C-alpha cells in the first residue's frame, strides 16, 4: 500500500440525514465550531455579569447587600477562570480554530471528526461541572483563579470543600476536551493541507492557532498534573503541596509538602496559557488588518517566526509570576531576562501590524476598527507587562491592581477586541449575512473607549498600592480619597461597557433574523475560506474537487493586476493584468 496524502485521497463523507446527526452529534467541524462558540459566549456572559457585581462592590463598597467577602472571592475566581479558560481558550481554539482550520488550509474536515465531536461534548460537560459548583454547599471555590494551595483546600477560604473539587474536575475534563480537539488541529494543519498549500502560504490565523494549540498540548499537562495532585491532597489527605499547618486553630495531619511546587506547576501551564489566548488573536488580527487595508501583511515571514519564537520562549518565563512568591530569589535574574526577551518578537509583531497599515488603503469597517483598537490596547498592556517583567519593579507592583490592569489590557481587552473583529469579519461567511454596521459602530466605540476608561486609571490605582483580591480597602494611611472616587468611576465605565455588549448580542440576533443576505466575500479577502462553492460552506466544504493553492494569502493590490486582490487558488495564468503591464516586474510572495 502506498502512502497517499490526504489531499490526494478520494473524499469519503457520510452526510448525516437526521436533525440530531446534523446539529447535535455533528461531526462537521463547522457545526462543532458554532457549538463551541455559543457555549463559550454563554459562559463568557456569566463571567461578565460576575465582573459587574465585583465592580459594584469595589466602586461602591458596602452599598449592596447581595455581595459579601465570601461571594466576592468566589466571583473573582470564577470570573477569572471562566474568562481565561472557558471563554477565551474555548472560543479561540474550539470555535475559531475549528471553523477556520479546514477552510483555510483547504481540507474537507478535521482529520478525525469523531474525536472532534467528542471534544466538544467533553467541553460541554466541563462547563456543566463548573456551573454545578455554584449550587453545591459552600459554593464555588474562592481561591483565586490561580487556586494556590494550601488555602484553596483549607477551611477559611470559600468553597474549600465541594467547590474546589468540582473546579479541579472540571479543569481535568476541559483538558481532555482540549487534547482531543488540539490533536485534530495539529494533525490537520500538518498533514491535511490541500495541493499547493505550503506552511509558508498559510494565513497567519492558522499559524497563531497552530502554535497556540501546540503550547496547549504541552502546557495543559502541567495543569492536569497539579489538579490531580491537589485532588489527592484534598480527597485523600496526601501532602504534595501541604506542609505542617495549623488551620484556623486546628492542627492538621499534613506534613512536608511544598506549596511552591504547585505555583511552579501552575505557572508552567499558566504562562503558556496566556499566550494560548494571545497567539490566535495575533494571527486573526493580522488577517483582518491585511484584508481591510487592502495590503499584504508586512513582513510575513518575520511574523511567522515571531509567533513560533514567542511560543517557544513562553515555556521558560513562567516564574515571572513568582518573583515575590518566596522561591529561590536567584531565579529572578534568569526569568527577568527571558521575560524581557519576549518583548522583542512581540514588538516585531506590533511594528508589522502598523506597517501593514502604512501605505495601505484603509477601509474603516467595523472589524478594522476593532483591529486598530487592538493595536492600541495591546501596546499599552504589553508595555505595562515590561514593568512587571523587570523583577525589581515587580516588587512594588506585584499583587496590586497594576497587575490586574496589565492583564486586562493585554488579555481582557485585546483578544476580546480581536474576537469581536473576527466575529464581524467572518460572520458573512458563517451565516451569509453581514452584521449590522451601525450597531457594530456603536458597539465598537462603546467597547473601545469604555474599556480604556476602565483600565487606564486602574494602572494608577495599582501604582498607589491598592492590592488585588481585596473585598474592601478599609482605612490606610497612604491611599488618597481620590482613589475611591476613581474606583467609582471605573465601575461606572465597566457597567456601561457591559451594557454595550447587549447591543452586540442584539446585533447577532437581529442580523440573523432581519438582515438581507450579503454579497459573497464582501470584504474581498484572498484567503481560501472565502472561496468555497457554497456560502455558507456545506458539509465537505469544497464540493467535488479540492482547490489548488498557487500563492500566499496576501496578494492584495498587486501592481498591474486588475482586481485588487488575487484569491489564493487562482493560478498565475488566470490572473488578469492591465493591458500593457510587464508581468515579470509584478510583486511576488516572499519565499
Amino acid at each position, binding site marked *: 500500500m502506498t502512502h497517499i496524502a490526504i489531499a490526494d485521497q478520494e473524499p469519503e463523507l457520510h452526510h448525516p440525514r437526521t436533525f440530531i446527526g446534523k446539529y447535535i452529534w455533528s461531526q462537521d467541524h463547522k457545526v462543532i465550531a458554532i457549538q463551541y462558540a455559543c457555549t463559550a459566549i454563554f459562559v463568557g456572559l456569566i463571567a461578565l455579569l460576575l465582573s459587574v457585581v465585583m465592580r459594584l462592590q469595589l466602586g461602591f463598597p458596602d452599598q449592596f447587600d447581595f455581595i459579601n467577602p465570601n461571594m466576592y472571592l468566589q466571583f473573582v475566581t470564577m470570573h477569572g477562570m471562566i474568562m481565561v479558560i472557558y471563554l477565551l481558550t474555548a472560543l479561540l481554539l474550539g470555535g475559531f480554530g475549528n471553523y477556520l482550520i479546514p477552510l483555510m488550509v483547504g481540507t474537507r474536515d478535521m482529520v478525525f471528526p469523531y474525536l472532534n465531536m467528542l471534544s466538544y461534548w467533553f467541553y460541554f460537560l466541563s462547563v456543566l461541572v463548573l456551573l454545578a459548583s455554584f449550587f453545591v454547599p459552600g459554593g464555588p471555590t474562592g481561591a483565586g483563579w490561580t487556586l494556590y494551595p494550601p488555602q484553596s483546600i483549607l477551611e477559611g477560604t470559600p468553597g474549600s470543600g465541594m467547590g474546589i473539587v468540582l473546579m479541579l474536575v472540571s479543569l481535568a475534563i476541559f483538558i481532555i476536551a482540549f487534547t482531543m480537539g488540539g490533536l485534530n488541529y495539529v494533525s490537520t494543519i500538518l498533514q491535511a493541507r490541500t495541493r499547493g498549500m505550503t506552511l509558508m502560504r498559510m494565513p497567519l490565523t492558522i499559524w497563531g492557532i497552530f502554535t497556540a494549540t501546540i503550547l496547549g498540548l504541552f502546557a495543559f499537562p502541567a495543569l492536569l498534573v497539579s489538579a490531580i495532585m491537589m485532588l489527592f491532597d484534598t480527597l485523600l489527605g496526601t501532602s504534595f503541596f501541604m506542609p505542617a*499547618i495549623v488551620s484556623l486553630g486546628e492542627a492538621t495531619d499534613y506534613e512536608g509538602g511544598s506549596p511552591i511546587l504547585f505555583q511552579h506547576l501552575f505557572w508552567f501551564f499558566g504562562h503558556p496559557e496566556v499566550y494560548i489566548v494571545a497567539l490566535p488573536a495575533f494571527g486573526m488580527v493580522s488577517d483582518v488588518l491585511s484584508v481591510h487595508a487592502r495590503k499584504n501583511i508586512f513582513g510575513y515571514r518575520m511574523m511567522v517566526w515571531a509567533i513560533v519564537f514567542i511560543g517557544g520562549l513562553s515555556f521558560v518565563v513562567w516564574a515571572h509570576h513568582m518573583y515575590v512568591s518566596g522561591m529561590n530569589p536567584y531565579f529572578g535574574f534568569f526569568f*527577568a531576562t527571558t521575560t524581557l526577551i519576549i518583548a522583542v518578537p512581540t514588538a516585531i509583531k506590533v511594528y508589522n501590524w*502598523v506597517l501593514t497599515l502604512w501605505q*495601505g488603503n484603509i477601509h474603516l469597517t467595523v472589524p478594522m476598527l476593532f483591529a486598530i483598537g487592538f493595536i492600541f490596547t495591546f501596546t499599552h498592556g504589553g508595555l505595562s507587562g515590561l514593568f512587571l517583567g523587570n523583577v525589581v519593579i515587580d516588587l512594588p507592583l506585584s499583587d496590586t491592581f497594576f497587575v490586574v490592569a496589565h492583564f486586562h489590557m493585554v488579555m481582557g481587552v485585546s483578544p476580546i477586541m480581536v474576537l469581536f473583529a473576527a466575529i464581524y469579519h467572518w460572520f458573512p461567511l458563517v451565516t451569509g449575512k453581514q452584521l449590522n454596521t451601525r450597531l457594530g459602530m456603536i458597539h465598537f466605540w462603546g467597547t473601545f473607549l469604555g474599556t480604556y476608561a476602565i483600565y487606564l*486609571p486602574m494602572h*494608577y490605582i495599582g501604582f498607589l498600592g491598592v492590592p488585588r483580591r481585596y473585598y474592601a480597602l478599609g482605612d490606610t494611611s*497612604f491611599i488618597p480619597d481620590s482613589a475611591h472616587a476613581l474606583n467609582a468611576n471605573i465601575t461606572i465605565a465597566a457597567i456601561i461597557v457591559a451594557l454595550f455588549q447587549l447591543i452586540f448580542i442584539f446585533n447577532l440576533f437581529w442580523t440573523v433574523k432581519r438582515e438581507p443576505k450579503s454579497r459573497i466575500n464582501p470584504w474581498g479577502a484572498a484567503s481560501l475560506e472565502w472561496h468555497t462553492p457554497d456560502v455558507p460552506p456545506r458539509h465537505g466544504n469544497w464540493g467535488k474537487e479540492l482547490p489548488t493553492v498557487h500563492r500566499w494569502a496576501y496578494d492584495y493590490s498587486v501592481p498591474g493586476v486588475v482586481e485588487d486582490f488575487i484569491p489564493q487558488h487562482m493560478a498565475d495564468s488566470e490572473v488578469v493584468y492591465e493591458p500593457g503591464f510587464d508581468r515579470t516586474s509584478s510583486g511576488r510572495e516572499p519565499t
Partner: protein
Amino acid sequence: MYIAIVIVGLVAITLILHFASPWWLTPLASNWSSIDTTIEISFWITGVVFVAVNLFLAWCVWRYRHNKDRRSHYEPENKKLEIWLTALTTLGVIAMLTPGLIVWGQVVHVPDDAMEVEAIGQQWQWTFRFPGDDGVLGAANARFVSTDNRFGLDPSDVNGADDILIEHHRLHLPVDQPVKLVLRSNDVLHNFAVPQFRVKMDLVPGTQTYQWFTPTRLGSFDVLCEELCGLAHYTMKGQVQVETNQDFQNWLATYPTFAEVQSGNEVDLAAGETQYQACAGCHGADGRGNDALNTPNLTRLDRRYMARQLRHYREGIRGTEREDTPGQTMVSIAQSTDVDSEADLLAYIASLDPVDVEGTLQGDTSNGQRLYGACAACHGTLAEGKELLSAPALAGQSDLYLKRQLEHFSMGWRGKHPQDQFGTQMRLMTSTIHSPERLRDLLAYIATL
C-alpha cells in the same frame, strides 16, 4: 477617520493623566530609591515607545484612509527596516533590564549588619519575633503551635529561649538600621508588603522566606497582606512604626521572652476572687452579666481576650466615645484595677462555671445561618470561639451585648483605633451586615448555638 483623532486624543489623555494626576507611588520611606529609579527609566522608555507607535498608527490611519483612486503599495517585506526596528527594540530592552538586574542583585544580597526580625503570618493576623540577646532566632515549626506556644517555637532549641515575642500587629523598627525580615507562616500563604518601603514577599508555610530594607523615615506605615489567604484576606493588616533607636529599645523591653511566656506566673485565685467583688456588682457574682446594666457574660470569655480588652480600655483604645456609657464606665474601672495582679483576677473569672445567657432577639435564623458563614471561620462553627485566633466565643453571650458591640463596630465607636487590630477587622466584617434586620437574624441564629 475618527479613530485616528481618537487615538491621538487617547495618547494625550494618557500623558495628561500621568503627569497631572496625583496618583503615583506613595513617597518612599526606605533605602530602595533605586527601585524607583528603575521604574522611572522604564517609564520613559516605554512612554516614548507608546507615544511613537500610537502616533504613527494614527498618522497611518489618517494618511492612508480609503481612497477609490489609490492603491496600496505592494511591499511584502523590508529586511532593512525590520532589522533596524529589532535592533532598536533590543537596545530598549537592555536599557531597562540592566538597571533592573543590578538592583535585584542588591535585593537578593542582605547586608551583613542587618538586624534580623521575624514576621509571622497566620489567618488573619500578624505577630513578630526578635532574636533576643544571642542574636539568633530559635527554630520554629507549625507542629509546635498550641495555645501555650502560639508562635510555634521549638521548645528544645536553646536559641529560642531568649527570643522576644511581639504578640501584636504593630512592629517597631529603629530608623536607618538595615533589617532582614524573616518571614514564616503557620497556616497558608500570606504576603508582607509595605508600599512605602517598596518591599513585598510571600510567607510560605513549610519554608522560610526573607526580604530586607532600611527604613529611612520616622512614622507609621501600613503592612498589607497581598497574597489571597482566604475570606478575611483584606482585613489582614499590620503596622510598622519607625522610630529612633532609643524609643525602639524602650519599646522592645516591654515584651516578654519565649522563656518568660512559657514559665507563666503563679496565680492567686483567692486574691482574684477578692478583686472580682468590684466587678460582681455589674457582671454578677457568677459572672453571667446583666442586660439591664448592659454588661456581658464574662464566663464565656477567655483570659487573653479579657486582658486585651482591659488594656484597650485603659489605653484609650476602646470605650472612648462619649455616648458609649457602658464603655466609659469600663474605662474608669479598668484604670483603677491593678495591672500587676490582673492575672489573678482573670484566672478567677476563668475558673467560674460557664453560663449560657438565653437569647432574646427574634429573627430569621436560616438567613442568620447564611450570614454567620463568614463569622464561623474565626469564631468557630458553634460560635465557641478560638483562642488561637484571638476570637472570643459568641455562643452563650448576651445577644443584646453582641448587638450593641456590632453596632459600635459599624458606627466606628469601637475598632477605629489603629492599635486595635481585631477591632479593625471586626469593623470591616460588620460592614457586610448592612441592615438591622440582617443583624437581628444573625444574632437570633447565634443564640441557637
